[in-house]
């Protein structure tokens, strides 16, 4: 890749940073004593985590009857939460992998935290399919392991079985990708540390030295992992959408789900990244690395994916009418006018109407609006999954079994508790690991730092490098 940068690009690193300054800025939250904000946040998150553990224990002890699911509506908040969390996780992979493939430099400000968010979101997501089982102590049956009962294998036709592989692959690959990226940064922290911290980071850094050959392999690995992760992230939420699309229930059985779900996942994931980044950059003083450019770029992605989701909603309505299939038509009348109409309008309002304000540049660059929008979007996306799951199941083919569902305290606590799990993990991550990708930021300093490009540039991009790069096109 040449060092040519278009003159319209705004800088992605501001504050006239040097390499050393970057190291200082990003490592210091892991080195200084935690701020009061952090401690309060952590205690709050840990309390919700404790609530989560209690609710799970209650569920397993008493039974799924401690929830309000019933003979008609077998999935409610549990699977809604599952899909919601998985969807949130997709932004991290998109930022790390897809934006890497598209050579978008701005990803470097947010990719580390976003990938961490992915991993924690997938951990939270993976909780729900496990705890929603009636006999969770037999969960091992879902794996095709050799046994003396035949051997009895699993059902490879089942989307839930596909989910097991999809989620565990997604988790593993994301973890490997994230960790591989973290290794050089852990080495940076290690080399600045002493005492028990030196030992800790020494172990975490896997013996990284910074050797040129190792960097070469590292970049090669990152590229292939990105190339693998891209179809992976598309496939994972596609497979999650198959949980519904491969069924026969009207409102579930539709081929639009894979792209609709993937777009929605990216939409909600970016919203969650915004929520996290807006808080992180302020409390950890990383505004120079997570700039308004980053925020605006993410808002553009949010606008795009939100519009795709909105188009998908309208397509569903159109196809229900056009198909002439009376059960499908009824499924949509029921969504708009039935007993759950409020969740449908919540979904439409939060997901379709509200992101349209990002057409206005001023709003795209407003921290205040972005923060509240990011919360609304995630609420809207939660409603979307709730509409799909509970509304559809409540009224399907045979009117005699129509029913209604609203959650018990256990289900609500499980959801709130999963937020506790997520934020506890994220806060631990923010405390112990560099939240921004140190090495990657350094590598774009000369082409994206404000002392090199943009209106405040002091140094012009170095032209000596041209003579070197002219010789070869073989690297990226």
């Amino acid at each position, binding site marked *: 890749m040449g060092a040519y940068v278009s003159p319209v690009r705004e800088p992605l690193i501001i504050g006239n940073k040097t390499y050393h300054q970057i190291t200082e800025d990003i490592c210091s939250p892991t080195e200084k004593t935690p701020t009061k904000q952090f401690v309060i946040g952590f205690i709050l998150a840990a309390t919700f985590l404790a609530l989560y553990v209690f609710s799970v224990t209650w569920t397993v002890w008493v039974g799924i009857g401690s929830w309000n699911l019933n003979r008609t509506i077998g999935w409610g908040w549990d699977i809604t939460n599952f899909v919601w969390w998985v969807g949130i996780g997709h932004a991290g992979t998109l930022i790390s992998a897809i934006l890497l493939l598209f050579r978008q430099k701005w990803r470097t400000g947010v990719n580390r935290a976003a990938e961490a968010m992915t991993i924690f979101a997938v951990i939270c997501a993976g909780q729900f399919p496990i705890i929603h089982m009636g006999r969770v102590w037999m969960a091992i049956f879902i794996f095709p392991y050799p046994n003396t009962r035949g051997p009895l*294998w699993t059902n*490879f036709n089942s989307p839930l079985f596909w989910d097991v*592989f999809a989620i565990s692959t997604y988790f593993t690959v994301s973890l490997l990708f994230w960790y591989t990226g973290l290794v050089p940064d852990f080495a940076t922290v290690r080399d600045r540390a002493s005492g028990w911290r030196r030992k800790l980071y020494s172990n975490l850094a*896997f013996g990284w030295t910074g050797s*040129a050959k190792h960097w070469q392999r590292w970049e090669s690995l990152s590229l292939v992992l990105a190339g693998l992760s891209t179809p992976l992230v598309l496939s994972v939420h596609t497979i999650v959408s198959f949980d519904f699309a491969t069924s026969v229930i009207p409102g579930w059985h539709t081929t639009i789900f894979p792209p609709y779900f993937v777009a929605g996942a990216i939409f909600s994931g970016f919203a969650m990244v915004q929520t996290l980044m807006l808080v992180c950059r302020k409390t950890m003083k990383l505004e120079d690395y997570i700039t308004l450019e980053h925020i605006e770029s993410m808002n553009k992605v949010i606008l795009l994916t939100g519009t795709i989701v909105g188009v998908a909603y309208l397509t569903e309505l159109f196809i229900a009418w056009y198909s002439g299939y009376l059960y499908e038509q009824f499924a949509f009348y029921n969504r708009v006018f039935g007993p759950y109409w409020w969740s449908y309008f919540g979904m439409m309002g939060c997901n379709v109407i509200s992101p349209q304000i990002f057409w206005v540049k001023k709003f795209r660059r407003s921290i205040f609006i972005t923060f509240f929008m990011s919360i609304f979007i995630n609420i809207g996306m939660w409603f979307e999954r709730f509409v799909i799951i509970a509304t559809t199941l409540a009224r399907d083919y045979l009117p005699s079994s129509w029913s209604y569902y609203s959650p018990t305290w256990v289900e609500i606590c499980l959801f709130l508790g999963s937020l506790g799990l997520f934020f506890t993990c994220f806060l631990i991550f923010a405390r112990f690991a560099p939240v921004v990708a140190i090495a990657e930021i350094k*590598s774009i300093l000369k082409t994206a730092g404000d002392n090199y490009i943009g209106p405040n540039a002091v140094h012009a991009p*170095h032209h000596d490098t041209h003579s070197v790069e002219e010789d070869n096109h073989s*690297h990226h």
Partner: protein
Amino acid sequence: MRSLNKNILFGLYNDETELLGAISKAKKAHLDIFDVYTPFPVHGLDPLLGLEESRLHQAGFVFGLTGTLTAFGFMSWAFVKDWPIIFGGKPHWPAPSFIPVTFELTVLFAAIGMVVSFYTVCGMGPGIKNPTLDDRITDDKFCIAFDTSGLNSNELDEINSFLANTGASEIHTKYI
């Protein structure tokens, strides 16, 4: 910590452009560089050093292919040969149903395989400590290192002056 039992003479630079300039000069002077260390991947470094392209991609392909065959083969065997069962009227070999798991295992095997290969080939892993030359290399210093074992004093001087002339801000030796 493993010891390489080498005496290393190295110079630290403050900027990657200086580093790249120094390396091309070293190549012209036929100096035998032991290794180059940087805080971030520097573009243009690999071809200068004459590093071969990594074969991780090919390894990844092979691992992935293993995953594909394992997944598809196992599912086909289990459903067709080992214990055929009727599920929802589907045939015993429902190839479309096998696609998601096959794809996932392909990716999983490729990713795990490549990552493990990466750490193995680089000599890295949990708990492994490799000797480093200077703590600031992972911060903002760029390093060219020469192995001085078996070099006579003329060659040592050549290296020292080379480092000084190409703008190294510091020159040190270290036994690792």
